[in-house]
């Protein structure tokens, strides 16, 4: 036989009938699941500090404390911290709490056009620094542990370079450091966001942001959905048909869509710096403080540091993250490899436990 296809016509007819039935049932399930059924970020927490639209939350403990120093989780402006606390069984936050970590998280809120003038300096030296200072004051500590995620990792690296005395241990996950490292790999499933931003001229970025006020969240959601274009297109049709007629599976599918499809906008100046950063590092000079005080400042990272790198396809390459190893000034640097794509590290069933456990063990060794 010259083909891989070995079909029994009777079986095919049965499979088609079954598929049609599943599709119909999946449609009914999808219709029955309402917005209120898809609850995200439900782990109990308390608002402890608010600065403009930025909120600092403190999570309620779920186990006896095993890591003495609190951990501050910092997500990026692209996406939301809710990705780290998607659902009860898919939550990095919950995994860390269950292993005895005292946890805080920063929520940057939903920047609107009125926030368009905010710079990365405002986020790093303003809001983030005030959150760190607040936690230090509250617990009577000189320094705390910081966990940065994606763009939040870039913020925490900048902050740690500015205030190394305030950071005891720094962990960054899926954080791009070298925005050009994807070019050396030549893989088609990596680095789409690098490639896309490189194709824009600085003037294109200026006009885009001038027209929209900010870097629109919808645009970033569109870019993310284009990382696996067919998977995004077939998620709510073929994907629904594969949900084995369970309401929970449909709710899980919708929960991810609820977070991924509602990416907040990045404020104008910060968005420009991030969008233009990959084009040319010199253009990052538009962010004076970031350029002046933190370029090359990674050498000031003398505290212990870890980078969690995922190996699966993503909008930036794992090499973009691995570049951190070459920049830090500490000898105590670790790399935790993880399977899965970008946010898949937090939401996939496979990664659950591995990432949280790896982080907690690493922190316990550095009390």
């Amino acid at each position, binding site marked *: 036989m010259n083909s891989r296809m070995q079909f029994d016509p009777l079986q095919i007819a049965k499979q088609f009938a079954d598929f049609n039935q599943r599709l119909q049932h999946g449609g009914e399930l999808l219709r029955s699941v309402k917005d209120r059924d898809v609850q995200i970020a439900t782990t109990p927490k308390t608002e402890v500090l608010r600065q*403009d639209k930025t909120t600092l939350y403190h999570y309620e403990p779920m186990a006896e404390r095993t890591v003495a120093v609190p951990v501050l989780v910092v997500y990026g402006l692209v996406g939301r911290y809710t990705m780290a606390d998607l659902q009860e069984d898919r939550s990095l936050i919950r995994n860390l709490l269950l292993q005895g970590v005292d946890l805080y998280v920063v929520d940057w809120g939903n920047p609107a056009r009125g926030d368009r003038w905010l710079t990365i300096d405002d986020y790093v030296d303003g809001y983030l620094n005030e959150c760190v200072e607040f936690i230090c004051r509250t617990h009577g500590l000189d320094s705390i542990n910081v966990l940065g995620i994606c763009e939040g990792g870039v913020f925490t690296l900048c902050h740690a370079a500015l205030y190394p005395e305030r950071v005891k241990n720094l962990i960054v996950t899926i954080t791009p450091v070298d925005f050009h490292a994807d070019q050396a790999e030549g893989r088609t499933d990596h680095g789409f966001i690098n490639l896309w931003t490189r194709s824009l001229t600085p003037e294109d970025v200026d*006009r885009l942001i001038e027209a929209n006020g900010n870097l629109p969240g919808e645009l970033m959601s569109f870019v993310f959905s284009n990382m696996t274009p067919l998977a995004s297109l077939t998620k709510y049709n073929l994907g629904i048909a594969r949900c084995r007629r369970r309401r929970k599976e449909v709710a899980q599918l919708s929960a991810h869509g609820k977070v991924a499809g509602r990416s907040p906008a990045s404020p104008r100046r910060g968005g420009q710096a991030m969008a233009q950063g990959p084009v040319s590092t010199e253009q990052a000079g538009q962010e004076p403080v970031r350029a002046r005080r933190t370029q090359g400042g990674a050498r000031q990272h003398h505290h212990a540091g870890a980078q969690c790198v995922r190996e699966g396809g993503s909008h930036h390459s794992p090499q973009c993250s691995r570049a951190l190893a070459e920049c830090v000034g500490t000898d105590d640097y670790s790399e935790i490899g993880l399977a899965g794509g970008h946010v898949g590290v937090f939401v996939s069933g496979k990664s659950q436990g591995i990432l949280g456990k790896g982080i907690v063990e690493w922190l316990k060794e550095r009390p």
Partner: protein
Amino acid sequence: MRRYGHSTARSSRRRSSARSGRGTLPHSRYSCTAHGTRPSKRFLREINDTQGTPITTWRELTDVWVKVANETLLATHRTPEFLEAQRRLTRSGAECRLQEREVAEAFCEMQQMPTRTEMDEVQREVYELRRRLRALEKSGMAAAAPGTPSPKATKKPGRGAR
């Protein structure tokens, strides 16, 4: 007061610049037919590859099709032609929105309503005031003494406190 003459000249320059960009895209190389047949050929090659595992169900066949289509789309998204077309689409969308804003602002001014530009200016002033206030608070020159939590802090956290 808004200077319409200046604005129109600027718009005209932009329109002229947009026009001059036309024709730079190699349309002949960006043919729908070529991009349409490529995945079909890849799909046929994939299902006729005798080295692969046998496909016995409809679902396995769908998976192969989705995989091939995904890879083809990703490869297309990385071509210089696609990236240039996408860049121009993004730019044109932005230019269109900015032109719409000029029309809306002209209407707002006629109706004695605040314009987007004026609102942006007010918001920038608020931002700069906030920034100055934060700097003052930080350096201890404001009324709030340094070293104390922000006045907006709602409550001190405790273990298990809600």
